[in-house]
Protein backbone atom coordinates (compact mmCIF):
# COMPACT_ATOMS: atom_id res chain seq x y z
CA UNK A 1 0.00 0.00 0.00
CA UNK A 2 1.22 3.47 -0.80
CA UNK A 3 1.46 6.40 1.52
CA UNK A 4 -1.51 8.52 2.31
CA UNK A 5 -2.00 11.86 3.96
CA UNK A 6 -4.36 12.16 6.90
CA UNK A 7 -4.74 14.20 9.99
CA UNK A 8 -3.41 12.37 13.02
CA UNK A 9 -6.83 12.14 14.60
CA UNK A 10 -8.30 10.56 11.51
CA UNK A 11 -5.33 8.28 11.13
CA UNK A 12 -6.05 6.84 14.56
CA UNK A 13 -9.56 6.05 13.43
CA UNK A 14 -8.41 4.47 10.20
CA UNK A 15 -5.79 2.39 12.01
CA UNK A 16 -8.31 1.28 14.59
CA UNK A 17 -10.77 0.11 11.99
CA UNK A 18 -8.02 -1.78 10.19
CA UNK A 19 -7.17 -3.40 13.52
CA UNK A 20 -10.71 -4.67 13.83
CA UNK A 21 -12.14 -2.00 16.08
CA UNK A 22 -15.84 -1.83 15.32
CA UNK A 23 -17.18 0.14 18.26
CA UNK A 24 -16.47 3.66 19.32
CA UNK A 25 -18.09 5.53 22.18
CA UNK A 26 -17.07 9.11 22.73
CA UNK A 27 -18.01 12.64 23.59
CA UNK A 28 -16.89 15.73 21.68
CA UNK A 29 -13.94 17.74 22.89
CA UNK A 30 -11.28 19.75 21.12
CA UNK A 31 -8.65 18.90 19.87
CA UNK A 32 -9.66 15.33 19.12
CA UNK A 33 -13.01 15.80 17.40
CA UNK A 34 -11.76 14.61 14.01
CA UNK A 35 -11.43 11.13 15.50
CA UNK A 36 -15.06 10.60 16.59
CA UNK A 37 -16.20 12.42 13.49
CA UNK A 38 -14.17 10.05 11.33
CA UNK A 39 -15.60 7.10 13.21
CA UNK A 40 -19.14 8.41 12.80
CA UNK A 41 -18.58 8.43 9.05
CA UNK A 42 -16.61 5.22 8.67
CA UNK A 43 -17.85 2.74 11.25
CA UNK A 44 -21.35 2.47 9.79
CA UNK A 45 -19.69 1.50 6.49
CA UNK A 46 -17.80 -1.24 8.28
CA UNK A 47 -20.66 -2.86 10.13
CA UNK A 48 -19.56 -1.11 13.23
CA UNK A 49 -21.26 1.32 15.59
CA UNK A 50 -20.27 4.84 16.45
CA UNK A 51 -22.22 6.22 19.36
CA UNK A 52 -21.94 9.64 20.86
CA UNK A 53 -22.47 9.18 24.56
CA UNK A 54 -24.08 11.78 26.79
CA UNK A 55 -20.78 12.32 28.59
CA UNK A 56 -17.28 11.00 28.97
CA UNK A 57 -18.40 9.12 32.07
CA UNK A 58 -21.04 7.37 30.07
CA UNK A 59 -18.71 6.75 27.13
CA UNK A 60 -16.13 4.92 29.21
CA UNK A 61 -18.84 2.80 30.79
CA UNK A 62 -20.22 1.93 27.36
CA UNK A 63 -16.69 0.86 26.54
CA UNK A 64 -16.77 -1.36 29.62
CA UNK A 65 -19.97 -3.02 28.46
CA UNK A 66 -18.77 -3.43 24.90
CA UNK A 67 -15.33 -4.71 25.89
CA UNK A 68 -16.92 -7.22 28.24
CA UNK A 69 -19.03 -8.33 25.31
CA UNK A 70 -15.84 -9.33 23.55
CA UNK A 71 -15.67 -6.47 21.06
CA UNK A 72 -12.69 -4.39 20.02
CA UNK A 73 -13.69 -1.00 21.26
CA UNK A 74 -12.21 2.46 21.57
CA UNK A 75 -12.91 5.80 23.12
CA UNK A 76 -11.09 9.07 22.91
CA UNK A 77 -11.11 12.39 24.63
CA UNK A 78 -8.89 15.18 25.81
CA UNK A 79 -7.60 16.09 29.26
CA UNK A 80 -10.66 17.12 31.33
CA UNK A 81 -12.65 14.45 29.55
CA UNK A 82 -10.09 11.86 30.55
CA UNK A 83 -10.28 13.15 34.12
CA UNK A 84 -13.96 12.25 34.05
CA UNK A 85 -13.19 8.77 32.82
CA UNK A 86 -10.96 7.87 35.74
CA UNK A 87 -13.52 5.83 37.63
CA UNK A 88 -14.46 3.95 34.49
CA UNK A 89 -10.82 3.28 33.68
CA UNK A 90 -10.04 1.77 37.06
CA UNK A 91 -13.11 -0.45 36.68
CA UNK A 92 -11.94 -1.59 33.26
CA UNK A 93 -8.47 -2.30 34.60
CA UNK A 94 -9.90 -4.16 37.58
CA UNK A 95 -12.28 -6.19 35.44
CA UNK A 96 -9.36 -6.92 33.11
CA UNK A 97 -11.13 -5.76 30.00
CA UNK A 98 -9.27 -4.89 26.82
CA UNK A 99 -9.89 -1.53 25.20
CA UNK A 100 -8.08 1.43 23.73
CA UNK A 101 -8.36 4.92 25.17
CA UNK A 102 -6.97 7.92 23.33
CA UNK A 103 -6.02 11.15 25.06
CA UNK A 104 -5.23 14.06 22.78
CA UNK A 105 -3.87 16.18 25.58
CA UNK A 106 -4.59 19.91 25.85
CA UNK A 107 -3.32 22.59 28.18
CA UNK A 108 -4.49 22.45 31.77
CA UNK A 109 -5.29 22.48 34.59
CA UNK A 110 -9.06 22.91 34.69
CA UNK A 111 -10.75 23.83 31.45
CA UNK A 112 -7.39 25.26 30.40
CA UNK A 113 -6.92 25.66 26.67
CA UNK A 114 -6.83 23.57 23.54
CA UNK A 115 -3.24 23.86 22.43
CA UNK A 116 -0.73 20.98 22.69
CA UNK A 117 0.45 19.92 26.12
CA UNK A 118 1.85 16.90 27.92
CA UNK A 119 0.59 17.72 31.35
CA UNK A 120 -1.45 14.55 31.62
CA UNK A 121 1.64 12.42 32.06
CA UNK A 122 0.77 11.65 35.66
CA UNK A 123 -2.82 10.99 34.71
CA UNK A 124 -1.67 8.44 32.15
CA UNK A 125 1.10 6.76 34.11
CA UNK A 126 -0.13 7.07 37.70
CA UNK A 127 -3.81 7.23 37.08
CA UNK A 128 -6.45 9.16 38.91
CA UNK A 129 -8.61 6.20 39.44
CA UNK A 130 -8.42 4.41 42.75
CA UNK A 131 -6.35 1.39 43.47
CA UNK A 132 -3.22 -0.27 42.18
CA UNK A 133 -3.79 -0.42 38.46
CA UNK A 134 -1.78 0.53 35.44
CA UNK A 135 -2.41 1.30 31.83
CA UNK A 136 -0.09 0.39 29.03
CA UNK A 137 0.60 3.86 27.63
CA UNK A 138 1.87 4.55 24.11
CA UNK A 139 3.21 7.96 23.21
CA UNK A 140 3.82 8.09 19.47
CA UNK A 141 5.90 10.93 18.05
CA UNK A 142 4.87 10.78 14.42
CA UNK A 143 1.88 9.67 12.45
CA UNK A 144 3.41 6.46 11.18
CA UNK A 145 4.14 5.44 14.73
CA UNK A 146 0.69 6.64 15.75
CA UNK A 147 -0.90 4.35 13.22
CA UNK A 148 1.33 1.38 14.01
CA UNK A 149 0.89 1.74 17.75
CA UNK A 150 -2.86 2.17 17.44
CA UNK A 151 -3.10 -1.15 15.69
CA UNK A 152 -0.73 -2.75 18.15
CA UNK A 153 -2.71 -1.30 21.05
CA UNK A 154 -5.73 -3.45 20.24
CA UNK A 155 -3.62 -6.60 20.18
CA UNK A 156 -1.79 -5.75 23.38
CA UNK A 157 -5.08 -4.89 25.05
CA UNK A 158 -6.55 -8.25 24.11
CA UNK A 159 -3.43 -10.17 24.97
CA UNK A 160 -2.95 -8.71 28.42
CA UNK A 161 -6.64 -8.04 29.00
CA UNK A 162 -5.84 -4.49 29.94
CA UNK A 163 -6.82 -1.01 28.86
CA UNK A 164 -4.22 0.63 26.64
CA UNK A 165 -3.89 4.38 26.39
CA UNK A 166 -2.55 6.31 23.45
CA UNK A 167 -1.31 9.74 24.41
CA UNK A 168 -0.91 12.45 21.83
CA UNK A 169 -1.55 16.15 21.74
CA UNK A 170 -3.24 18.61 19.43
CA UNK A 171 -0.19 18.73 17.22
CA UNK A 172 -0.12 14.99 16.69
CA UNK A 173 -3.88 14.99 16.28
CA UNK A 174 -4.09 17.84 13.81
CA UNK A 175 -0.98 17.47 11.69
CA UNK A 176 -0.65 15.58 8.43
CA UNK A 177 2.33 13.62 7.26
CA UNK A 178 2.60 10.60 5.01
CA UNK A 179 1.44 7.34 6.51
CA UNK A 180 1.58 3.82 5.28
CA UNK A 181 -1.05 1.41 6.51
CA UNK A 182 0.74 -1.89 6.70
CA UNK A 183 -1.09 -5.16 6.74
CA UNK A 184 -2.07 -5.72 10.34
CA UNK A 185 -0.55 -8.80 11.91
CA UNK A 186 -0.75 -9.25 15.64
CA UNK A 187 2.54 -9.94 17.38
CA UNK A 188 0.63 -11.89 19.98
CA UNK A 189 -1.07 -15.22 19.81
CA UNK A 190 -4.54 -14.18 20.79
CA UNK A 191 -7.07 -16.59 22.20
CA UNK A 192 -10.84 -16.66 22.15
CA UNK A 193 -12.51 -14.34 24.61
CA UNK A 194 -14.26 -17.13 26.43
CA UNK A 195 -14.69 -14.89 29.46
CA UNK A 196 -16.93 -12.45 27.59
CA UNK A 197 -20.60 -12.09 28.45
CA UNK A 198 -22.16 -13.26 25.23
CA UNK A 199 -25.02 -15.25 26.68
CA UNK A 200 -24.64 -18.72 28.12
CA UNK A 201 -26.81 -20.31 25.41
CA UNK A 202 -27.50 -22.75 28.22
CA UNK A 203 -24.16 -24.30 27.34
CA UNK A 204 -21.90 -23.01 30.04
CA UNK A 205 -21.91 -21.46 33.50
CA UNK A 206 -22.66 -17.74 33.47
CA UNK A 207 -19.74 -15.44 32.80
CA UNK A 208 -19.47 -12.66 35.31
CA UNK A 209 -17.61 -9.40 34.86
CA UNK A 210 -17.03 -7.90 38.24
CA UNK A 211 -14.71 -5.74 40.30
CA UNK A 212 -16.31 -6.09 43.74
CA UNK A 213 -14.62 -8.24 46.35
CA UNK A 214 -15.94 -7.72 49.84
CA UNK A 215 -13.45 -10.21 51.19
CA UNK A 216 -10.13 -8.39 51.29
CA UNK A 217 -8.22 -11.61 50.73
CA UNK A 218 -10.09 -12.07 47.46
CA UNK A 219 -9.46 -8.49 46.49
CA UNK A 220 -5.79 -8.90 47.26
CA UNK A 221 -5.79 -11.98 45.06
CA UNK A 222 -7.04 -9.89 42.16
CA UNK A 223 -4.32 -7.42 42.97
CA UNK A 224 -1.64 -10.09 43.00
CA UNK A 225 -2.84 -11.24 39.62
CA UNK A 226 -2.79 -7.69 38.31
CA UNK A 227 0.69 -7.10 39.68
CA UNK A 228 1.93 -10.24 37.98
CA UNK A 229 0.46 -9.02 34.74
CA UNK A 230 2.05 -5.60 35.19
CA UNK A 231 5.42 -7.21 35.83
CA UNK A 232 5.03 -9.14 32.61
CA UNK A 233 4.10 -6.00 30.72
CA UNK A 234 7.01 -4.19 32.30
CA UNK A 235 9.47 -6.76 31.11
CA UNK A 236 7.93 -7.22 27.65
CA UNK A 237 6.52 -3.94 26.54
CA UNK A 238 8.82 -1.09 27.49
CA UNK A 239 9.84 0.66 24.29
CA UNK A 240 12.00 3.59 23.50
CA UNK A 241 14.16 5.17 20.86
CA UNK A 242 17.73 6.14 21.66
CA UNK A 243 19.03 8.83 19.35
CA UNK A 244 22.51 10.24 18.94
CA UNK A 245 23.67 8.70 22.18
CA UNK A 246 27.25 8.20 21.13
CA UNK A 247 29.53 10.60 22.95
CA UNK A 248 26.57 12.53 24.23
CA UNK A 249 27.55 15.14 26.80
CA UNK A 250 23.99 15.33 27.97
CA UNK A 251 21.01 13.13 27.33
CA UNK A 252 17.61 14.69 26.94
CA UNK A 253 14.52 12.70 27.70
CA UNK A 254 11.45 13.67 25.74
CA UNK A 255 8.45 12.01 24.18
CA UNK A 256 5.83 12.76 21.56
CA UNK A 257 5.74 16.26 20.12
CA UNK A 258 8.51 17.46 22.38
CA UNK A 259 10.86 14.75 21.18
CA UNK A 260 10.47 16.01 17.63
CA UNK A 261 11.58 19.45 18.67
CA UNK A 262 14.41 17.97 20.66
CA UNK A 263 15.60 16.09 17.58
CA UNK A 264 15.83 19.38 15.73
CA UNK A 265 17.78 20.77 18.64
CA UNK A 266 20.13 17.83 18.58
CA UNK A 267 20.79 18.27 14.87
CA UNK A 268 21.40 21.96 15.33
CA UNK A 269 23.74 21.42 18.26
CA UNK A 270 25.64 18.75 16.38
CA UNK A 271 26.42 21.42 13.81
CA UNK A 272 27.80 23.44 16.68
CA UNK A 273 29.92 20.52 17.80
CA UNK A 274 27.83 19.69 20.82
CA UNK A 275 26.74 16.09 21.23
CA UNK A 276 23.33 15.69 22.76
CA UNK A 277 21.58 12.37 23.10
CA UNK A 278 17.88 11.62 23.31
CA UNK A 279 16.01 8.90 25.09
CA UNK A 280 12.53 8.94 23.70
CA UNK A 281 10.11 6.81 25.69
CA UNK A 282 7.61 5.27 23.30
CA UNK A 283 5.84 3.65 26.23
CA UNK A 284 5.28 6.02 29.12
CA UNK A 285 4.24 3.08 31.21
CA UNK A 286 6.15 0.91 31.44
CA UNK A 287 8.79 3.59 31.48
CA UNK A 288 11.86 2.36 29.58
CA UNK A 289 14.17 2.22 32.56
CA UNK A 290 16.65 0.01 30.72
CA UNK A 291 17.43 2.85 28.37
CA UNK A 292 19.17 4.55 31.25
CA UNK A 293 21.58 1.69 31.73
CA UNK A 294 23.26 2.37 28.43
CA UNK A 295 24.06 6.01 28.80
CA UNK A 296 27.63 6.66 27.67
CA UNK A 297 30.19 7.76 30.22
CA UNK A 298 30.63 11.00 28.32
CA UNK A 299 27.22 12.01 29.59
CA UNK A 300 27.28 14.27 32.59
CA UNK A 301 23.63 15.08 33.01
CA UNK A 302 20.09 14.19 32.05
CA UNK A 303 17.38 16.62 31.21
CA UNK A 304 13.68 15.97 31.03
CA UNK A 305 12.09 18.14 28.38
CA UNK A 306 8.35 18.32 28.67
CA UNK A 307 5.32 20.30 27.73
CA UNK A 308 4.46 20.02 31.40
CA UNK A 309 6.02 21.23 34.59
CA UNK A 310 8.06 18.28 35.64
CA UNK A 311 5.92 15.16 35.54
CA UNK A 312 8.09 12.74 33.57
CA UNK A 313 11.06 13.93 35.61
CA UNK A 314 9.92 11.56 38.36
CA UNK A 315 10.47 8.59 36.11
CA UNK A 316 13.75 9.95 34.81
CA UNK A 317 14.97 10.28 38.37
CA UNK A 318 13.77 6.84 39.33
CA UNK A 319 15.31 5.28 36.24
CA UNK A 320 18.64 7.01 36.61
CA UNK A 321 18.64 6.37 40.34
CA UNK A 322 20.93 9.18 41.34
CA UNK A 323 23.64 8.29 38.86
CA UNK A 324 23.36 11.58 37.02
CA UNK A 325 21.95 14.96 37.89
CA UNK A 326 18.52 15.41 36.35
CA UNK A 327 17.65 18.80 34.91
CA UNK A 328 14.42 20.05 33.54
CA UNK A 329 13.08 22.23 30.81
CA UNK A 330 9.40 22.60 30.27
CA UNK A 331 6.67 24.80 28.94
CA UNK A 332 3.02 24.48 29.68
CA UNK A 333 -0.51 25.50 28.92
CA UNK A 334 -0.19 25.03 25.18
CA UNK A 335 3.14 26.78 24.78
CA UNK A 336 5.46 24.64 22.68
CA UNK A 337 9.12 24.66 23.72
CA UNK A 338 11.15 26.54 21.15
CA UNK A 339 14.38 24.96 19.90
CA UNK A 340 16.28 28.07 20.93
CA UNK A 341 15.13 27.91 24.51
CA UNK A 342 16.04 24.25 24.76
CA UNK A 343 19.45 24.97 23.24
CA UNK A 344 20.04 27.70 25.73
CA UNK A 345 19.08 25.46 28.61
CA UNK A 346 21.28 22.66 27.30
CA UNK A 347 24.23 24.99 27.06
CA UNK A 348 23.59 26.28 30.53
CA UNK A 349 23.56 22.75 31.92
CA UNK A 350 26.58 21.58 29.95
CA UNK A 351 28.46 24.63 31.10
CA UNK A 352 27.44 23.83 34.62
CA UNK A 353 28.16 20.15 34.26
CA UNK A 354 31.73 20.64 33.14
Amino acid sequence: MGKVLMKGNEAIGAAAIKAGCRFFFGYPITPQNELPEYMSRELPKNEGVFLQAESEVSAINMVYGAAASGARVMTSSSSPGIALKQEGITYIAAAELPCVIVNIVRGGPGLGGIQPAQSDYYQATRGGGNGDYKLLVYAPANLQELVDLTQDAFDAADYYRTPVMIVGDGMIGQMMEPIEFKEHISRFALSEKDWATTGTKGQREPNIINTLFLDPAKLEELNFRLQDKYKLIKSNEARYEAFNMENAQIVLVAYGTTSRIVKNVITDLKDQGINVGLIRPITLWPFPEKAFDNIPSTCKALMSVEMSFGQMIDDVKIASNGRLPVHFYGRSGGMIPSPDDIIEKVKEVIGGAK
Partner: protein
Amino acid sequence: MINEKIICAGFGGQGVMLMGQTILYAGMVEGKEVSWLPSYGPEMRGGTANCSVIVSDRPIGSPVISNNATSAIIMNLPSLIKFEKDVISGGRLVINSSLIEKKSSRSDIKAYYIPANDIAVELGNSRVANTVLLGAYLKLTKILSDTSIMKALHKAFSGTKAHMLDINMAAYERGADLVG
Protein backbone atom coordinates in the same frame (compact mmCIF):
# COMPACT_ATOMS: atom_id res chain seq x y z
CA MET B 1 19.33 20.41 -0.22
CA ILE B 2 15.76 21.46 0.27
CA ASN B 3 14.42 22.34 3.69
CA GLU B 4 11.48 24.64 3.05
CA LYS B 5 9.37 25.81 5.94
CA ILE B 6 6.30 27.55 4.67
CA ILE B 7 3.62 29.39 6.55
CA CYS B 8 0.33 29.82 4.67
CA ALA B 9 -1.96 32.33 6.33
CA GLY B 10 -5.14 34.24 5.67
CA PHE B 11 -8.80 34.55 6.64
CA GLY B 12 -10.74 31.39 7.31
CA GLY B 13 -12.37 30.58 3.97
CA GLN B 14 -9.55 31.86 1.79
CA GLY B 15 -8.30 28.34 1.29
CA VAL B 16 -4.96 28.57 3.06
CA MET B 17 -5.34 25.08 4.53
CA LEU B 18 -5.95 23.57 1.12
CA MET B 19 -3.04 25.52 -0.31
CA GLY B 20 -0.78 24.02 2.32
CA GLN B 21 -2.13 20.55 1.72
CA THR B 22 -1.48 20.86 -2.00
CA ILE B 23 2.19 21.56 -1.32
CA LEU B 24 2.18 18.70 1.17
CA TYR B 25 0.75 16.25 -1.30
CA ALA B 26 3.03 17.31 -4.10
CA GLY B 27 5.98 16.92 -1.75
CA MET B 28 4.92 13.43 -0.80
CA VAL B 29 4.42 12.45 -4.42
CA GLU B 30 7.94 13.59 -5.10
CA GLY B 31 9.28 11.46 -2.27
CA LYS B 32 10.24 14.36 -0.06
CA GLU B 33 9.80 14.41 3.68
CA VAL B 34 6.74 16.51 4.38
CA SER B 35 4.53 17.70 7.19
CA TRP B 36 1.51 19.94 7.52
CA LEU B 37 0.27 21.47 10.73
CA PRO B 38 -2.81 23.65 10.99
CA SER B 39 -3.67 26.18 13.59
CA TYR B 40 -6.83 25.00 15.26
CA GLY B 41 -9.36 26.01 17.81
CA PRO B 42 -12.50 28.08 18.11
CA GLU B 43 -10.76 31.15 16.78
CA MET B 44 -10.57 29.39 13.40
CA ARG B 45 -14.24 30.05 12.78
CA GLY B 46 -14.18 33.72 12.19
CA GLY B 47 -10.65 34.96 12.37
CA THR B 48 -7.44 34.00 10.73
CA ALA B 49 -6.35 30.55 9.75
CA ASN B 50 -2.89 29.32 9.04
CA CYS B 51 -0.87 26.22 8.52
CA SER B 52 2.78 25.28 8.56
CA VAL B 53 4.15 23.11 5.78
CA ILE B 54 7.61 21.62 5.70
CA VAL B 55 9.17 20.07 2.61
CA SER B 56 12.59 18.67 3.19
CA ASP B 57 15.19 16.22 1.98
CA ARG B 58 15.94 15.25 5.57
CA PRO B 59 13.60 13.66 8.09
CA ILE B 60 11.46 16.30 9.68
CA GLY B 61 11.80 16.86 13.38
CA SER B 62 9.12 19.17 14.55
CA PRO B 63 6.32 20.23 12.21
CA VAL B 64 6.16 23.47 14.16
CA ILE B 65 7.50 26.54 12.43
CA SER B 66 8.26 29.09 15.08
CA ASN B 67 10.60 31.81 13.91
CA ASN B 68 12.34 29.87 11.21
CA ALA B 69 10.01 29.98 8.23
CA THR B 70 11.84 30.06 4.93
CA SER B 71 8.72 31.37 3.21
CA ALA B 72 5.34 32.75 4.06
CA ILE B 73 2.34 32.98 1.77
CA ILE B 74 0.16 35.70 3.16
CA MET B 75 -3.41 36.30 2.13
CA ASN B 76 -4.57 39.09 4.45
CA LEU B 77 -3.26 41.96 6.52
CA PRO B 78 -3.49 40.47 10.02
CA SER B 79 -1.46 37.51 8.81
CA LEU B 80 1.22 39.77 7.40
CA ILE B 81 1.52 41.51 10.74
CA LYS B 82 1.54 38.23 12.62
CA PHE B 83 3.97 36.21 10.52
CA GLU B 84 6.30 38.66 8.81
CA LYS B 85 8.70 38.46 11.72
CA ASP B 86 8.86 34.66 11.60
CA VAL B 87 10.57 34.51 8.22
CA ILE B 88 14.31 33.98 8.38
CA SER B 89 16.69 36.47 6.92
CA GLY B 90 16.94 35.75 3.20
CA GLY B 91 13.52 34.14 3.20
CA ARG B 92 10.50 34.91 1.05
CA LEU B 93 7.17 36.59 1.53
CA VAL B 94 4.48 36.03 -1.06
CA ILE B 95 1.82 38.63 -0.42
CA ASN B 96 -1.71 38.89 -1.73
CA SER B 97 -1.52 42.50 -2.77
CA SER B 98 -5.18 42.56 -3.78
CA LEU B 99 -6.17 42.65 -0.13
CA ILE B 100 -2.98 43.94 1.48
CA GLU B 101 -1.89 47.47 0.74
CA LYS B 102 0.91 47.45 3.26
CA LYS B 103 4.40 46.57 2.09
CA SER B 104 6.74 44.33 3.99
CA SER B 105 8.81 46.23 6.51
CA ARG B 106 11.69 43.77 6.34
CA SER B 107 14.61 44.56 4.09
CA ASP B 108 16.41 41.28 4.68
CA ILE B 109 13.81 39.16 2.96
CA LYS B 110 12.40 39.07 -0.54
CA ALA B 111 8.79 40.16 -0.83
CA TYR B 112 6.60 39.41 -3.85
CA TYR B 113 3.32 41.20 -4.28
CA ILE B 114 0.76 39.20 -6.20
CA PRO B 115 -2.68 40.67 -6.89
CA ALA B 116 -4.16 37.25 -6.35
CA ASN B 117 -7.79 38.22 -5.84
CA ASP B 118 -7.80 40.47 -8.86
CA ILE B 119 -6.42 37.71 -11.01
CA ALA B 120 -8.84 35.23 -9.51
CA VAL B 121 -11.78 37.52 -10.23
CA GLU B 122 -10.46 37.94 -13.74
CA LEU B 123 -10.47 34.15 -14.06
CA GLY B 124 -14.04 34.14 -12.88
CA ASN B 125 -13.87 33.03 -9.24
CA SER B 126 -12.31 34.96 -6.39
CA ARG B 127 -11.93 31.71 -4.46
CA VAL B 128 -8.97 30.61 -6.56
CA ALA B 129 -6.79 33.45 -5.25
CA ASN B 130 -4.99 30.89 -3.12
CA THR B 131 -3.94 28.91 -6.16
CA VAL B 132 -2.64 32.02 -7.85
CA LEU B 133 -0.36 32.57 -4.87
CA LEU B 134 0.58 28.92 -4.83
CA GLY B 135 1.60 29.17 -8.47
CA ALA B 136 3.78 32.15 -7.75
CA TYR B 137 5.33 30.57 -4.69
CA LEU B 138 6.20 27.27 -6.34
CA LYS B 139 7.59 28.96 -9.41
CA LEU B 140 9.76 31.10 -7.17
CA THR B 141 11.14 28.29 -5.06
CA LYS B 142 11.06 25.43 -7.54
CA ILE B 143 11.13 23.04 -4.62
CA LEU B 144 8.76 20.73 -6.44
CA SER B 145 8.40 19.59 -10.03
CA ASP B 146 5.46 20.62 -12.16
CA THR B 147 4.32 17.02 -12.49
CA SER B 148 4.07 16.64 -8.75
CA ILE B 149 2.15 19.84 -8.48
CA MET B 150 -0.20 18.86 -11.25
CA LYS B 151 -0.84 15.57 -9.48
CA ALA B 152 -1.55 17.44 -6.30
CA LEU B 153 -3.99 19.79 -8.02
CA HIS B 154 -5.73 16.88 -9.65
CA LYS B 155 -6.02 15.23 -6.26
CA ALA B 156 -7.22 18.41 -4.54
CA PHE B 157 -9.89 19.02 -7.16
CA SER B 158 -11.36 15.64 -7.71
CA GLY B 159 -14.71 14.14 -6.83
CA THR B 160 -17.28 16.78 -5.97
CA LYS B 161 -14.68 19.47 -6.55
CA ALA B 162 -13.66 18.28 -10.02
CA HIS B 163 -15.44 21.19 -11.67
CA MET B 164 -12.96 23.49 -9.98
CA LEU B 165 -9.91 21.81 -11.48
CA ASP B 166 -9.62 23.78 -14.69
CA ILE B 167 -9.94 27.18 -13.16
CA ASN B 168 -7.40 26.25 -10.51
CA MET B 169 -4.98 25.03 -13.13
CA ALA B 170 -5.41 28.35 -14.84
CA ALA B 171 -4.93 30.21 -11.60
CA TYR B 172 -1.81 28.25 -10.91
CA GLU B 173 -0.38 29.10 -14.32
CA ARG B 174 -1.21 32.77 -13.93
CA GLY B 175 0.48 32.89 -10.57
CA ALA B 176 3.54 31.15 -11.90
CA ASP B 177 3.71 33.41 -14.94
CA LEU B 178 3.64 36.50 -12.80
CA VAL B 179 6.98 35.66 -11.26
CA GLY B 180 8.26 33.70 -14.21
